[in-house]
C-alpha cells in the first residue's frame, strides 16, 4: 500500500478549481454608487480659452479628437489654432504654491466629488466685497452691474448668501445624490469636473458641454450676454428632453427628484469650474491683485470675490423678472399668418435681421468656427427641422430674442414687441422658421426658396 498525503493530488486540483471560481465571483465586487472618498477634483491643466480666433473652417475635428486638450496641441503646425496663442493661456505655468492655494480654497468652498458642497462665505469677506462694489472701481463696474443691483436691496451677509444657496437647491444632500447620478450617467461624456472631456467626449460631435466657463447655450433668462446664467428650468428641460441633433440623451426616465439633484450638481460644477477658470485666467494675465491674493501672504479674497459674483448671477437668473416673457400672438388668422411668415423671411434675408449672413443658404452651407469653449461648431441648418434648444415656438423665440450664449448667435431682443405681439418681428421669424423645413408648407405660404 503506497502512503498518500492527507489531501490527494486530485482533491487539491479540485479544491483549487472551486476556489478559483469562488474568487471570480468575489471579484465582481459590490455596486458602488458614489465617488471614492479620496478622489479630488483635479486642478485644470487644459488650456484656458479667453477669446477665440475668428477662423472659419470647412471641416470639424476628426473623430477621437478635441481641438485643444493641452498646449502641446497648439504647438502642432497642423492645428488650426497654431500661432493663435494670444488669448489662450497655459494653466500649468502657474507656480506650484499658487496652485496649491487655489486647490485648497476650492476644496474648502466646493468639497470633493464624493462630498460636494457649496459653502457660504463669511461676513468678513462679504463686507470687504460690498465695500469694493460700492466704491465703484472702474475695472469692476461693467462686470458686476447686475450684482450691484442685487446687493443694493440690502447688504450681502452670510445669511443672505446661505439663502441664495437654498434657493438654488445647493444643499449637501441634494448635491451628494446628484453626484452619484452624475457619476453613473454623465461622467463619461462631461468628465469629472464637468469639463466636457470625459472618455466619450472625444468621439462625440458636437462635443459635450464644458461647464467651467459658466456659459450654457439654451437659456431663457434675460440677463445680458456675458452675465447670463441659465434658469433652473432650462437645465431641467435639457435633462428631460435631451438635445436632438447632438449626443445628449433624454433623461426623462429619471424621477423628477433625481433630475433636480443632477441640475443642482451641474450648477455646483459650473460654479467651481468658473471660479477656477476666472482666477487662473486673471493670474495668467498678470492681474496684480490676483497675484497678491494668491501669494504667500494673500488670503484668497480675489477667488472668493469671484465666487460671490457668480453665485449672485446664478441666483439673479432665477428671479421671475429675468425670465424672457414674450407676448402671445397666437392664434393667427390665415391671412395674418401668411403675412407673418413672409415678413419673417424678409427679416431673415434683409438688413434688419441679416440671419442669412451667418446661416448661408438657410444654414445648409454653414462653415465651422470656434465657439467660446474652443470647440468647433457649425451654425444651425435651419432647413433640417431639428432644433437643438427645443422645437416649441417658445423655445425658438427664446433663441432669437436672447441669442445663444457661447456660440456666437446674436441677440435680437430690440426687435421684439411684447405689447403688440402680432407686430413682434421675432414672432415673424419664429413662424418662418417653423415653415422653413417643410417643402409643402413653403409652397403653401408662397415663400421664395431655391
Amino acid at each position, binding site marked *: 500500500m503506497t502512503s498518500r498525503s492527507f489531501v490527494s493530488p486530485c482533491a487539491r486540483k479540485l479544491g483549487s478549481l472551486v476556489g478559483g471560481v469562488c474568487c471570480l465571483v468575489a471579484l465582481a465586487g459590490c455596486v458602488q454608487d458614489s465617488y471614492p472618498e479620496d478622489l479630488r477634483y483635479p486642478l485644470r491643466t487644459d488650456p484656458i480659452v479667453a477669446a477665440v480666433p475668428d477662423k472659419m473652417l470647412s471641416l470639424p475635428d476628426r473623430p477621437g479628437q478635441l481641438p485643444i486638450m493641452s498646449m502641446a496641441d497648439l504647438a502642432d503646425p497642423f492645428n488650426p489654432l497654431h500661432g493663435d496663442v494670444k488669448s489662450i493661456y497655459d494653466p500649468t505655468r502657474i507656480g506650484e504654491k499658487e496652485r496649491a492655494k487655489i486647490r485648497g480654497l476650492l476644496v474648502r468652498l466646493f468639497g470633493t466629488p464624493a462630498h460636494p458642497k457649496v459653502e457660504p462665505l463669511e461676513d468678513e469677506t462679504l463686507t470687504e466685497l460690498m465695500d469694493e462694489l460700492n466704491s465703484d472701481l472702474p475695472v469692476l463696474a461693467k462686470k458686476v452691474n447686475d450684482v450691484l443691483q442685487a446687493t443694493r436691496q440690502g447688504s450681502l451677509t452670510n445669511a443672505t448668501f446661505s439663502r441664495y444657496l437654498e434657493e438654488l437647491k445647493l444643499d449637501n444632500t441634494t448635491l451628494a445624490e446628484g453626484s452619484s447620478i452624475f457619476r453613473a450617467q454623465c461622467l463619461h461624456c462631461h468628465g469629472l469636473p464637468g469639463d466636457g472631456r470625459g472618455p466619450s467626449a472625444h468621439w462625440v460631435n458636437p462635443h459635450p458641454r464644458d461647464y467651467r466657463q459658466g456659459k450654457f447655450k439654451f437659456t431663457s433668462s434675460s440677463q445680458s450676454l456675458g452675465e447670463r446664467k441659465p434658469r433652473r428650468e432650462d437645465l431641467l428641460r435639457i435633462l428631460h428632453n435631451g438635445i*436632438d441633433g447632438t449626443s445628449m*440623451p433624454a433623461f426623462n426616465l429619471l424621477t423628477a427628484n433625481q433630475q433636480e439633484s443632477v441640475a443642482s450638481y451641474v450648477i455646483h460644477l459650473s460654479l467651481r469650474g468658473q471660479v477656477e477658470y476666472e482666477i487662473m485666467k486673471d493670474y495668467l494675465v498678470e492681474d496684480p491683485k490676483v497675484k497678491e491674493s494668491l501669494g504667500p501672504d494673500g488670503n484668497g479674497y480675489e477667488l472668493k470675490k469671484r465666487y460671490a459674483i457668480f453665485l449672485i448671477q446664478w441666483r439673479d437668473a432665477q428671479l421671475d423678472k429675468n425670465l424672457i416673457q*414674450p407676448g402671445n400672438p397666437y392664434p393667427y388668422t390665415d391671412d395674418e399668418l401668411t403675412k407673418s411668415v413672409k415678413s419673417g423671411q424678409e427679416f431673415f434675408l434683409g438688413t434688419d435681421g441679416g440671419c442669412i449672413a451667418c446661416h448661408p443658404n438657410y444654414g445648409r452651407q454653414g462653415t465651422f468656427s470656434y465657439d467660446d469653449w474652443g470647440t468647433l461648431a457649425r451654425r444651425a441648418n435651419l432647413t433640417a427641422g431639428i432644433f437643438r434648444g427645443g422645437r416649441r415656438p417658445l423655445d425658438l423665440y427664446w433663441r432669437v430674442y436672447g441669442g445663444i450664449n457661447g456660440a456666437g448667435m446674436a441677440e435680437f431682443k430690440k426687435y421684439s414687441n411684447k405689447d403688440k405681439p402680432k407686430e413682434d418681428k421675432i414672432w415673424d421669424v419664429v413662424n418662418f422658421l417653423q415653415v422653413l423645413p417643410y417643402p409643402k408648407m413653403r409652397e403653401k405660404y408662397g415663400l421664395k426658396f431655391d
Partner: protein
Amino acid sequence: MQKLWGVLFGVMMTAAFGLFAVAPLIRGWWLPKNVASFGQGIDNLFYLILGITGFFFVLTEAILVYTMIRYGAEPGRKSSYVHGNHQLEVVWTIVPGVILFFLALWQISVWADVKFYTRMPRPDENTQQMEVTARQWEWRVRYPSTKRMKSWEPASDEARKAATENAKESGKSLDVLAKELSSKWAQEFGQNPHPDDVYLVNDIHVWKGNKVLVSLKTRDVLHSFFLPNLRLKQDALPGKTIPVWFEALEANAYFDGANWLDGYRYNAQGDQWVKDRNHIWELACAEYCGTRHSLMRGKLFVHETKDDFLKWLELAEKEQHRSTPPKPEAVAATK
C-alpha cells in the same frame, strides 16, 4: 478519485436543472408578462423548444454522469479500445436533424405573422402609426397630431373638404375621392415629417386592442427596438426604414389627474386601477450601440381606450405648441 469528477458534474447539472425548474416561481426569472396578440405563438415555440432540448439535456447529462462514475479510471483496470458504433452515430445525427427540420417548418407561421410585410396592418384609418428613430442613446418618437389622425378617416371633415375641392377635376365621386385622399395621407405619414407632428422621447404610447405600425429608423449606428412584453425585437439599420407592427391586448396607463403613470392594471369588475409591478413595460435597446447602450431605455404606455390616448396626445400637442412660459405652479404639477 476520478469518480469525484463525475459526482461534481452530476451535482452541477442537477443544480442547473433545478434552477430552471424553480425559475417560473421566482420573480423576474421567467418570461416577462406577454401582452402582444402574437406573443402566445412565440411563447409556445419557446416552450416547445425548451421541452425538446430539456429532454435531451437530461438524457445526455445522465448518460455522461453515469459513464463517468461507472467507468472512471481505477488502478488495476485496463481501458478497452472501442472503435465506435456506426449505427449509433447515424441515429444520433438523423434524429436531431429531423427534429430541427420539423422546428424550422413549425416556426414559419409564427415568424410570418410578426415579420412578413404582407401580414402587417396597412397604414390606414384603423392603424395607429408612429415613427421611432433610434439614436445614441435614446428613442425619438414622432406621433401624428390628433387632427392628422382624424384626416385619415374618409368621413372626416378634412377628407371631405379636399374631396369637394378636387371632385370636378378628377371626375370621381365624392366618396371615392375622399377615401383615396385620406388613404394617401395615411400612407405618407411614415415617410416624411409634418409640421404638426408631435415629437417625444423614450415614450411609446398606444391604446389597447389596436394595431400599431411603427416605422423604425436610426440616425447613427445599429440599434434594436426591443419590447420584451410584446415579444418584439427588430434591429434598426442605418439607411433603412423598417416597418414593425404589434397589437397590445392589455392596458397599463393610469391617469391620476395630472400625469399618466405606468405600472397599473385595470380591474373591469371594480372599475378601478390597481398597482401592478408586472405592468411596467419597458423598451430597451438590444444591439450594442456604444457607452450608454444599457441605459437606452424607454417606457411603453398602453391606454385603455382610444379616447384616453387622444387626451394624452392633445396635451402633448399643446405643450409642443407652447408660446408662453408655463406658470411656476403648473410646472410643479407636472413633476
